[in-house]
């Protein structure tokens, strides 16, 4: 910035502002890999659950959930329900009040906007075929 004429600086600011305004409505903004699971939530009057991959991969390697705990590589493909979680399966293997906070904290997982469909956010498929996802 320093050394440029005021006109150039003004123009740069204007461009930056224009860019921000132009992109203000980007609705696909969720973090890459965030999984929304809405198998039963909407029907049960709960907000859909969101699984943040990024947060978990900082702490665990893929193998822990996808091999040891048996999570299939498919959003919504695991038929997870609260009974299984309380029994210590799936999320409940860690979210048991010992390794991680337990199931009383409903709203920490069930935090999506109601009606959000099951999908992996920012995934290639979501970007390629949003219409196909909505039909489902």
């Amino acid at each position, binding site marked *: 910035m320093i050394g440029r004429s005021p006109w150039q600086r003004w123009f740069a600011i204007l*461009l930056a502002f224009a860019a921000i*305004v132009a*992109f203000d409505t980007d609705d696909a903004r969720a*973090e890459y*890999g965030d999984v929304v699971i809405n198998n039963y939530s909407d029907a049960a009057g709960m907000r859909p659950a969101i699984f943040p991959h990024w947060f978990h991969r900082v702490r*665990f390697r893929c193998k822990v959930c996808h091999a040891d705990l048996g999570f299939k*590589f498919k959003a919504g493909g695991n038929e997870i329900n609260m009974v299984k979680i309380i029994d210590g399966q799936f999320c409940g293997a860690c979210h048991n009040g010992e390794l991680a906070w337990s199931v009383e904290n409903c709203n920490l997982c069930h935090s999506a906007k109601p009606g959000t469909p099951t999908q992996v956010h920012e995934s290639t498929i979501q970007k*390629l075929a949003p219409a196909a996802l909505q039909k489902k």
Partner: protein
Amino acid sequence: MKIERVILPVLMSVFFGGAAFADAGKDLYNKTCAVCHAAGIAGAPRFGNAADWQPRLAGGTARLYASALKGTAKGMPAKGGNLTASDGDVKAAVDFMLASVKKTASASPAKPAAAPAAAPVAAAPKAAAAPAAMAAAPVAAAVAPVAKIDATANTSGASAADINSFNRLLKPIGKRNPPPAEDGIHDPANDGTLVLMAPLAAYGPLPKSLAGNRVNWVKAIDEKKINPRWDRQDANAAPVVIDLNIVREVKGSMPDVVYPHKQHTEWLDCSNCHPAIFVPQKGANAISMAAILLGEKCGVCHGKVAFPVSECRLCHSKKKEFRPAQATAPATK
């Protein structure tokens, strides 16, 4: 009343350059709605296009308000994705868009489809007064009302660079890794949402990349910036890392693919990939970019959580040996 509501904004914006008429609905339209509703992106009804709006008007204004506020299954995000806008402003923006079509509809109420054709006559002096605006709306330059709104947008300082800006559809820096309450999927009205960690709070010390989370996760482990557990309970368990590269020759001019077991076994167990996704046998796996894009093979992870397919050269990394003489001189063997 109706005529005043329609005519006044137009006159005011033309004669006073829009600056004197500080309308919340128009502001929100320019800032948020216009991104889709100016050009009709994703099937959005276009500003000033009566034919687009006609079927929607049949449901009543209240229903349009509801769609704008809560979003629709067809692709309209709640409040156009701008959740900080107040309900009143959103409704005002809907009114503003409706006003644009009511004007053209009243010009030729019997044939809404002919409205765009009739409009240029009425709006000719206004459009002529803003030639820059016409140039700024290539998609709908022929539709006078759209050009008109651009004229008001320009003079009110919103800038013509919006539409022809670089990388119009890419995610700008300010919109990457948003905190949960602003990411479009978490419900900001949920108390738990506010407790959740924001991605950027975690990414600070991690090496950067150009795609996905914009974190180079492989490097993050290599540099020991993170040490994710290999076992749920045992913090000291270590993975069995296999250092074995598999080279896949690919068709065309793309460099061949080098698949490194090393980086994958840092994260994954053999059973994650073998034998369900990849048969552990050379030549037994038909892999194509089409399959990967659809979430199969490498695409089971790459393009969902692992780095996305936009990073071609991370896989296609082995330059082909160019052997033009091979066909004529087989004796080189």
